[in-house]
């Protein structure tokens, strides 16, 4: 199974007494207490592991440290592989759910790398989203005051090449 942790991919293979992470093999043992509590032994070291799964992320807590892990979904791969430096269209999404405070651009407007596009507010914090490319605003899908989730495409920017 391929897993994603903070943008890094790991190939994981768990069998009865072996754990393979990428090309490294480790001895492995598992005891299941409940759906949320496991006892895992790797290379002879045992840890109590707490976990919860919302079908999108698995949240793991071990000794005070937290890990949020996703399964690599082949259908989303195109988007994640896209390198920001040479993509043709920038899809601006919020870094977290929030509400739109201000939109600073208009459709058809030319923007530079670093141009402020809109201001988002979440949890009493305002943040400005910027364009990472030089281009033209082709679509604005939100209005000020609108509540948006992290998946929402806010603005599309089409790359404009330097002549």
């Amino acid at each position, binding site marked *: 199974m391929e897993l994603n942790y903070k943008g890094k991919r790991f190939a994981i293979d*768990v069998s009865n007494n072996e*754990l393979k992470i990428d090309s490294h093999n480790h001895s492995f043992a598992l005891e299941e207490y409940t759906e949320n509590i496991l006892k895992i032994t790797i290379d002879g070291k045992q840890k109590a592991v*707490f976990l919860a799964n919302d079908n999108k992320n698995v949240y793991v*807590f071990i*000794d005070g*440290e937290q890990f949020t892990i996703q399964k690599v979904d082949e259908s989303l791969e195109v988007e994640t592989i896209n390198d920001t430096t040479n993509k043709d269209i920038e899809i601006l999404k919020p870094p977290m759910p929030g509400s739109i405070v201000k939109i600073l651009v208009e459709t058809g407007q030319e923007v530079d790398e670093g141009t402020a596009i809109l201001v988002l507010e979440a*949890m009493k914090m305002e943040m400005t989203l910027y364009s990472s490319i030089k281009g033209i605003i082709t679509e604005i899908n939100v209005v000020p005051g609108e509540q948006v989730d992290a998946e929402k495409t806010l603005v599309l920017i089409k790359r404009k090449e330097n002549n």
Partner: protein
Amino acid sequence: MIKKVLVANRSEIACRIIKACRELGIRSVAIYSDIDRNALHTLLADEAVHIGESPPLKSYLNMEAIIEAAKKTKCDAIHPGYGFLSERAEFNQMVRDAGLIFIGSSPESMHLLGSKVQSRQIMINSGVPIIPGMKSASKEIEEFRKVANELGFPVLVKASDGGGGKGMRVVRSQDELEDAVNSAMRESISAFKSDAIYLEKFIESPRHVEFQVAADNYGNAVYLFERECSIQRRHQKIIEETPSVALTQELRKRMGETAVRAIQAVGYTNLGTVEFLLDRNGNFYFLEVNARVQVEHPITELTTGVDLVKLQILIASGERLPFKQEDLKQNGHAIECRIYAEDAENNFLPSSGKILYLREPTGPGIRFDSGIYPGSEVPIFYDPILAKLIVWGRDREEARLRMINALKNTVILGTKTSIGFMIKVLEHPEWISGNTYTNFIEKHFGAGYSASEELLKYALAAASISFGKVRKTATIAKTKEEIPSPWSTLGNWEIALGKH
């Protein structure tokens, strides 16, 4: 005595106030916004009133609706908690005009404290030390030279109308001064359309030390000692402790008495906090008065044995302070860690979501003030505080070790939290040595923080087991592989061609 309190707040502090009411035999009324319909405070109170839509302006900041709810449910008092309307003099006045008790100081004292210029002058007149500097803005470089020389370097050039660090320059010597003044002025003009700049003494890596004070309506006032709150990120405290390692008994007494003088100067009553900056030479400077219960009030409760929220309600009911200064003692050491829904690995960016799993820490000397339960939502609309973990120990080291252990046993899943980061702070040699200054996180964790590589192996194994269960397809695939192909079970054989 107050009989019924409307709690004009949410999350952990609303729950804390409801508990105090219950112990005093007072009925409590919660208010809730759309998204907080099933929040913990809504469930905990004796009654709950829906107050409006989720955005704060339509709910927890909606003054008319809150007062209306208090009247409708026949409350005789409103407790504002912290944040939201707690320090809004206008709301305070409206509550009183409606014939209700506002659990807090008078609107007049809040007005005085709200104005920086006015409160600064009042403090000077009452002999409360403030950061020395120019009395007003200037454009004359000679004036800057003169004041800088009097104060001694380093000094801070500041935009009068500024904020957020804009138009601010630290100047370490005479020959840097002119450039700094000119560039601060340019920045101030472009950012705030104002050329008003001034200069004050720059306090190098100070500590944030605040004093809890309480005053009744009869002129009695005491201080309940200090809290050191130097561990901050984005200018917001995350770990607080008491006592502060930086205070001697003599300095503690002097600062405490100054704090009492500061609140008496503005006619302040009920519970309040006087904030100071403390430099490395034991000089302290008044910052501001927080006219409300503080987030970090529990560490004072654990070391003095005084229930501060009950005290607020008693004072507001017209009772006298139940103790004198000489009755108050500090016992042991207490630490608080604020557990926010935030991503310590990504600049402490707030996080939201749903609490999928919760295991609260327990044990001797451990207190968990919480606003969440398994299944509760962490909305995007409000301050992302989930809970506060507070521990008491006989001394600082016992409290520290107890806190680390308790953090490791505080399991919150479904949103990111700063638990792992706070463990790292408490394990840092400079924290252990008591070298806690307001730039601590910037200085020691400026390069960021990352969860341990070693534990990642366990996390990946656990995640793959968990995903393996929900994805039925994976199970089917495995089963298929395990069914042996008939071709491999037939043994050695040959296709008999032409043997007939």
